[in-house]
């Protein structure tokens, strides 16, 4: 079974994000981290591969300025076999549909039985790329999975809904998107981190994949939203709760 996992390198969410004033794109430092929500997809892929046995492969597929590949190495250190990276200057600021087209071309070229992705990225959070990808690959999608089970030819999931969850089943090849409740991702061990440095990483360009970026949306203006003023911050030394009581009284809640 060939499993492709879509992963994304993003600027460290702990640091404030900036837009490049010249392009209005998110400024991306050389050192980017693995989007935390992608660790769940990688873990599901590794578990499914372990279940299937030796003939299973886990390939990371990513479209991003590669930089130092720090984020990709994090996912390789968890146990993925190899990575395919699409890095092309022409893809800077690409929208979700362009991203899906590039990933679809790379995944098709590589061959797949299952594609796994998170439900949305932490930095862009448009939340539509995985389904665009499923449509371009012409496969069924099992989305918003909080539990995944596999039998010989089918995947069965618990799919999050507004009201609860549904049990949904689809035959392979298919695309799966996972929430962060699906599994507990493993932490890379020392051996994994050492091995990750030697695992193959293939670099692709738009020309290699026959993808032409199209721009169908134009940013007209970007402006900061007046930030809320931070109010009073109190260090709790046993009396912090009284501040809340006072506030609730002031607001006439109590």
């Amino acid at each position: 079974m060939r499993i492709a996992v879509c992963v994304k390198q993003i600027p460290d969410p702990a640091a404030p994000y900036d837009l490049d004033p010249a392009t209005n794109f998110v400024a991306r430092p050389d050192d980017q981290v693995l989007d935390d929500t992608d660790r769940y997809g990688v873990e599901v892929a590794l578990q499914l591969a372990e279940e299937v046995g030796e003939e299973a492969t886990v390939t990371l597929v990513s479209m991003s300025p590669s930089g130092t590949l720090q984020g990709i190495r994090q996912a390789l250190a968890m146990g993925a076999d190899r990575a395919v990276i699409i890095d092309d200057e022409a893809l800077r600021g690409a929208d979700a549909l362009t991203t899906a087209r590039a990933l679809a071309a790379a995944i098709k070229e590589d061959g797949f039985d299952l594609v796994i992705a998170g439900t949305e990225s932490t930095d862009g959070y448009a939340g539509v790329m995985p389904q665009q990808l499923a449509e371009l690959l012409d496969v069924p999608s099992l989305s918003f999975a909080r539990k995944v089970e596999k039998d010989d030819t089918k995947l069965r999931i618990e799919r999050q809904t507004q009201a609860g969850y549904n049990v949904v089943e689809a035959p392979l090849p298919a695309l799966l998107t996972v929430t962060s409740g699906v599994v507990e991702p493993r932490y890379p061990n020392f051996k994994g981190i050492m091995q990750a440095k030697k695992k193959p990483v293939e670099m692709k360009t738009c020309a290699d994949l026959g993808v032409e970026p199209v721009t169908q949306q134009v940013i007209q203006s970007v402006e900061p939203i007046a930030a809320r003023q931070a109010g009073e911050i109190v260090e709790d030394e046993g009396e912090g709760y009284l501040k809340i009581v006072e506030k609730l009284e002031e607001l006439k809640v109590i």
Partner: protein
Amino acid sequence: MTTWVFCEELDGTPSASSLELLTKARTWGDVEVFSVGAGSDDTFAALGAHGASKIYHLDPADQLAAPVAAAAMAELIGTAAPDIVIFGVGNTERDVAGRLSARLGSPVLSNAVEIDPGGDQVTVTNEILGGTTRVVTAATASPVIVVTRPKAFPAEPTAGGTPEVVSVSLPDIGHAGAAIVLERHIEESEGPDLEAAAIVISGGRGMGGGEEKWEPVTKLANLLGGAVGATRAVVDAGWVPYSLQVGQTGKTVKPDVYIACGISGAMQHLVGMKDSSTIIAINKDADAPIFSVSDLGIVGDVHKVMPALISALEAR
């Protein structure tokens, strides 16, 4: 100008987002609805009362809705030629919007808080980077596909007529349509409605796992007559039902008072609650981003501050 609004019918009622989007879109022209579900008269009537002139109805039965809905919509869009197609932000909505976008080769403008049909070009306003930056984007594709933030527009009925209902037959899309829904489960949540509550008490990962550690959140909500909310980490971990999630991928709340307990304030959460009138936060990390939007921040252990607060309130 013709606008399409997507509706997912749940339990015989239209999705809340569909009524909000109808209310907005009818201000600039004719609005038609593409509705997915069993197809109840109540749903059609509610859509009509909010301004739908025509309803295309597809019943996917046990097939997962998104692939067949997107295929049927793409086919109809060829002749009906709407200028804008608008979706709410639910899971099915996002799935259909993504698939439709790929089918039509038209990008999705996500997280919209404002839509302006303009003269010759549609513009969409969204808030990025956790709601700190406002971006106006002009779309050049046709139709323009938009996914909006919940509660971006209030729903109000109008003196609408009875909409024409067109039954759409289920397209055969082969393997892509092979996902089947085997079981449907509803998880009940107790207490006041999260989206309508004047007071919301939300808990995050900092509450710690397990029923006992979550209890102060429920207790405080009961004492203040508020609703319980949670972060994505908490609902994903299964501590509380998904329907209690506040944030980018959950609900948007604007209560009078929002009390954030053990919540660091990730962008994805802030988007869903930053417009609350008063925000009170309790978190052990003084550098947590939640404090930058709080009117009152207590830097401390939730499991010390909350029991003390609960006792004080109980003693009143």
